[in-house]
């Protein structure tokens, strides 16, 4: 069912008609409440048909320089992960004020539908969705398949800057910190004192087993290898199809149920710096609709450098040993 664009909000009705038979059929079908898929994802077809809708605001979060400038989805606002979505001095997510100013500049109002997309399979776009969810932005969705799919389909891109009329958006005073886990939250799990919480490591099997410190081409930012004791491993890429779109809700449910994650217990996801795990967080929280899913954005680069914490290193790789 989630293979098709699904439309639930009444104001999408007209756009759905414009999309023709398939989309009309999907639009006429009430979405299944337990999946929540319709509130989380938009298809490239849907976005192409709704680009002119003033309620739709598109944001690109790509990590490779020059991509946005050389052609982006028309009307999109460029957001830099390194400058805009994190604190540039402390290691932390961007502040409420920073995000609020950014969204005002991007023309996001209280009733906007914010569609985020980016390169690298939407990793950094998913980080954006996670941060916007923390700060209580009401309607945040990802473009399924991200930049890669939009390009592969040969859809229109633009190099023309669009200055959106600034808004006076006011974000809720309190961020939703229930979406975020800190070192103190994962430590009890590692020490076997919190069996009720499931820990999900979404890095590659070689990072998980401790055979390597970081993926090929990335700096080794942690000086210990391995994973947090008690964590299970489902590499992020298992959540997507070859074209980069998310697998169906049923497939995702089965995938995570295979490692004992079924939404009945709280889940914490982590990776190396928190970008890939944002993608899996999105699948668990927003697509499967599991209640208590947190992302540990400190991830392995914090945990693997923390002094005195328990580590599981099945491969036994020793840092600095030759």
């Amino acid at each position, binding site marked *: 069912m989630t293979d098709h664009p699904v439309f639930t909000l009444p104001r999408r009705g007209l756009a759905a008609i414009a999309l023709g038979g398939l989309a009309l059929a999907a639009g006429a079908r009430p979405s299944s409440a337990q999946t929540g898929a319709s509130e989380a994802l938009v298809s490239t077809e849907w976005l192409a048909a709704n680009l002119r809708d003033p309620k739709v605001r598109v944001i690109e979060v790509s990590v490779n*320089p020059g991509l946005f400038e050389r052609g982006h989805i028309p009307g999109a606002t460029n957001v830099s992960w390194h*400058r805009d979505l994190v604190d540039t001095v402390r290691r932390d997510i961007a502040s409420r004020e920073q995000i609020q100013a950014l969204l005002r500049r991007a023309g996001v109002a209280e009733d906007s539908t914010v569609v985020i997309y980016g390169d690298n399979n939407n990793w950094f776009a998913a980080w954006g969705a996670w941060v916007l969810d923390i700060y209580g932005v009401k309607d945040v969705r990802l473009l399924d398949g991200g930049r890669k799919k939009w390009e592969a389909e040969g859809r229109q891109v633009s190099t023309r800057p669009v200055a959106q009329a600034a808004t006076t958006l006011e974000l809720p005073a309190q961020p939703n910190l229930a979406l975020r886990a800190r070192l103190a939250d994962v430590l009890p799990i590692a020490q076997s004192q919190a069996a009720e919480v499931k820990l999900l490591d979404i890095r590659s099997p070689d990072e998980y087993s401790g055979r390597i410190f970081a993926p090929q081409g990335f700096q080794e930012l942690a000086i210990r290898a391995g994973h947090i004791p008690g964590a299970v491993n489902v590499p992020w890429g298992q959540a997507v199809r070859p074209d980069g779109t998310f697998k169906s809700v049923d497939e995702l449910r089965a995938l995570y149920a295979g490692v004992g994650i079924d939404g009945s217990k709280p889940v914490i996801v982590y990776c190396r710096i928190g970008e890939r795990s944002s993608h899996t967080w999105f699948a668990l929280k927003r697509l499967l609709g599991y209640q208590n899913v947190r992302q540990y954005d400190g991830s392995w680069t914090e945990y693997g450098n923390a002094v005195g914490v328990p580590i599981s290193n099945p491969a036994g790789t020793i840092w600095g040993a030759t």
Partner: protein
Amino acid sequence: MSPSKLGWLGAATGVAALVALWLAVGADRGLAFSLILGVAFGWVLQRSRFCFLCILRDAVRDGDPRGLLGLLTALAVGTVGYAVVFGAWLPVPMRPGLPPDAHIGPVSWVLVLAGIAFGIGMTLSGSCVSGHLYRLGEGSLRAPVALIGTGAGFLAGFASWPALYDATIRDAPVVWLPHHLGYAGSLLLSLGVLALLALPLLHRLPAGMTGQAAGLSVPDVLHRVFRQRWPAWLGGIAVGFIGTVAYLRTEPLGVTAALGGVARSAGASLGLLPDRLPGLDTFAGCGTAPDGVLGNAAFVGGMVSASLIAAGLAGQVSFQWPGWGRQMRTLAGGFLLGWGAMLALGCTIGVLLSGTMAAALSGWVFGLATMAAASVTLRLGWDG
């Protein structure tokens, strides 16, 4: 073999190489575009003899400023083109951050030293890196020797990078003129300086430069396009245009990224270079981002193929052995080209052209150092 037979052979080789390259990269839109740009660039360089040393030699030895005016034309056209692109990408230039990928490098005495080394290398080896690349298509036997030297020079450059980075490059200013002057101010300054440089040259144009009065027949036109050299100003306009299009669509013009990337990975795997070159990948330039190597390889491949075809059709292919003594100087000159191009993060294309067009102070500094060093060594007769 007669020159015309050699020419046809060269052109046929160029076409075959181009077909092979197209089959290899044609499926990837980005690489295919790099290949096409390389073809255009190689064609223009060969037809208009856009070789930095030849341009300078004409002016220094023969008092003929037309080549230098062509270079200034390229810089003026590219400066305006880049400003148009910048204006769309970064509407407010005063905000922190540099335009993506633009070759805006650190300015320090290392850049001056690199420019001087590159200038001497040009004189000794008989050309700059891009000149050698298009000379490959003309059958030059110095070009391959110089390019081998350039690869070795790149290795030496990478090896000396960490110490020089610690000593000075780390704290060197990265100056982008629009940060300080805005786009209008930066454009006015750049074009003003280019005009001031052009003014004395315009006084020395050779006599009899009036335009063609009578009409041209079709054979005349074909002859002028395919057999005669193009006037330098036309080459300059084309280079400025290609530079702008390259920046808009792929990456700034440069010819050493692939060469430098290969030298870097070879050096690393042979254990000659440290695994990490501090700070290098934080700059935009040639040889800094190993990811860009494939696109640059397609570009350079297209360039060499096109020069084979262009030189072949013009009957400008010939093999001449310059003698061992000269080849040793060519090799040494090539080494200096590589060392200078690595430390400057590009050569006369990647820094002098792409940097100056991008309103980078580094482009101006490298360009002046290179041209000054080459002028002095030409006067000393080191190109003999």
